[in-house]
């Protein structure tokens, strides 16, 4: 059984996002079973576990991309399926596939991210996009096709969404992958900012978070030695 390691909780209202008895069975193998998890506004959760423990699967379930094999995920106390519209307006999910188009320039990628994120005032060559690119150290590369950038630079282009989005809840799968030390520090500062503004973050990472003042909570997915059960 997977036991969430909980620290003291200040907020006792309805959690922003909670998973109730969520299980994942894939190809007859149980990844995790009967998982309980609750996230309140302003919290940062790190989900850890060995390779193949089901971290990404759990994130995708929490984001509503995957249907849990059993149990349910709730946003503000509402079942995701019934509350999809509101939930997805408040959600920013960046998977390990970064959704960056190699055929587009960094600037174009940022523009379309903003556009599809629901920002109708977004323009190509937006002043705000230049700011974001500057913060992420991508100035001078903005016209370059993203496919020609290095892996770390491409990752930075993907992460610009953390600056351009207004979503309350971030679900990030291995956000630090391919980033250098500066990039990691930059990202953690952004996390801090987001949490201070009342936002929440769920993320997976193999790396321990460096900032001491980040109020980190941890959920560890332990390997299960159990045969698959039906239903």
């Amino acid at each position, binding site marked *: 059984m997977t036991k969430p390691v909980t620290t003291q909780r200040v907020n006792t209202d309805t959690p922003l996002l909670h998973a109730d008895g969520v299980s994942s069975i*894939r*190809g*007859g193998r149980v990844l995790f079973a009967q998982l309980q998890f609750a996230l309140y506004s302003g919290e940062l959760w790190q989900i850890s576990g060995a390779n193949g423990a089901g971290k990404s699967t759990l994130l995708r379930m929490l984001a509503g991309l995957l*249907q849990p094999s059993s149990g349910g995920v709730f946003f503000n106390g509402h079942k995701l399926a019934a509350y999809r519209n509101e939930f997805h307006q408040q959600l920013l999910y960046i998977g390990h596939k970064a959704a960056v188009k190699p055929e587009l320039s960094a600037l174009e990628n940022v523009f379309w991210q903003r556009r599809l994120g629901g920002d109708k005032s977004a323009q190509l060559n937006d002043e705000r996009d230049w700011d974001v690119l500057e913060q992420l150290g991508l100035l001078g590369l903005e016209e370059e096709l993203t496919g020609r950038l290095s892996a770390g630079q491409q990752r930075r282009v993907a992460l610009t969404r953390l600056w351009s989005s207004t979503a309350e809840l971030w679900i990030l799968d291995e956000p630090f992958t391919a980033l250098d030390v500066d990039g990691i520090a930059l990202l953690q500062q952004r996390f801090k900012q987001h949490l201070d503004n009342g936002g929440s973050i769920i993320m997976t990472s193999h790396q321990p978070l460096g900032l001491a003042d980040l109020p980190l909570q941890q959920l560890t997915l332990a390997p299960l030695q159990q*045969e*698959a059960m*039906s*239903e």
Partner: protein
Amino acid sequence: MWRWLHPYAKPEATYRLVDKLLPWFAAFTVVSLAVGMIWGLAYAPADYQQGDSYRIIYIHVPSAIFSMAAYFAMAVMGAIALIWQIKTAEWAIPAIAPVGAAMTVVALLTGAIWGKPMWGTWWVWDARLTSELILLFLYVGVMALYYAFDDVRTGAKAASILAIVGVVNLPIIHYSVEWWNTLHQGATITKFERPSIATSMLWPLLVSLLGFKLLTISLVMMRFKNELLRHELHRPWAQKELSADKELSDGV
């Protein structure tokens, strides 16, 4: 999820039910098929135009009808699997598809055999034969898709979606082929569509229809039992079932 349906979403309960019903279906299949075939092939009067060769309708027509019906049933199972996420409905797809495809092949073969004395050739682009051929392609697509995925559930979902798309298209395909046929082969006499049939020929046909229906259902049930056991192999009830079968066969 429908409450009353719920017990049968449990594979074990489904298995018990199918196991209980199968002998009855099998017995009635044998009886009705034997009566229908012997009556139709030996005792029904010969056709004044086609002589004895028309008798193949007692196989051709039922197999053609139930090849279509099986596809429809498969699509219904697919819809149940998709909407209510019932696993046993997913497993019905690999149980039905090969049986339906086999019926389609029987319809095609008997059609070809009938065509030889009628038209002097094994294959004509007759509307019904063409429709059956396309139906066979649809079955092949569903089966190929079902087995293409590593994850069985994904394969089942994909096959369900395709089966439903196919069932929506089936009438369109059917009528387009018929339309095409009248357009290009207006001169050919279509022996398959008989406006009327003598009662003495109709009764054996109805019995054969019943026989083929029961045969289709029985075959599907047998395959479905296997699918249930295959997917639940690690569960105690399946283990028990298999060892009981083994003892039985050892004893004999």
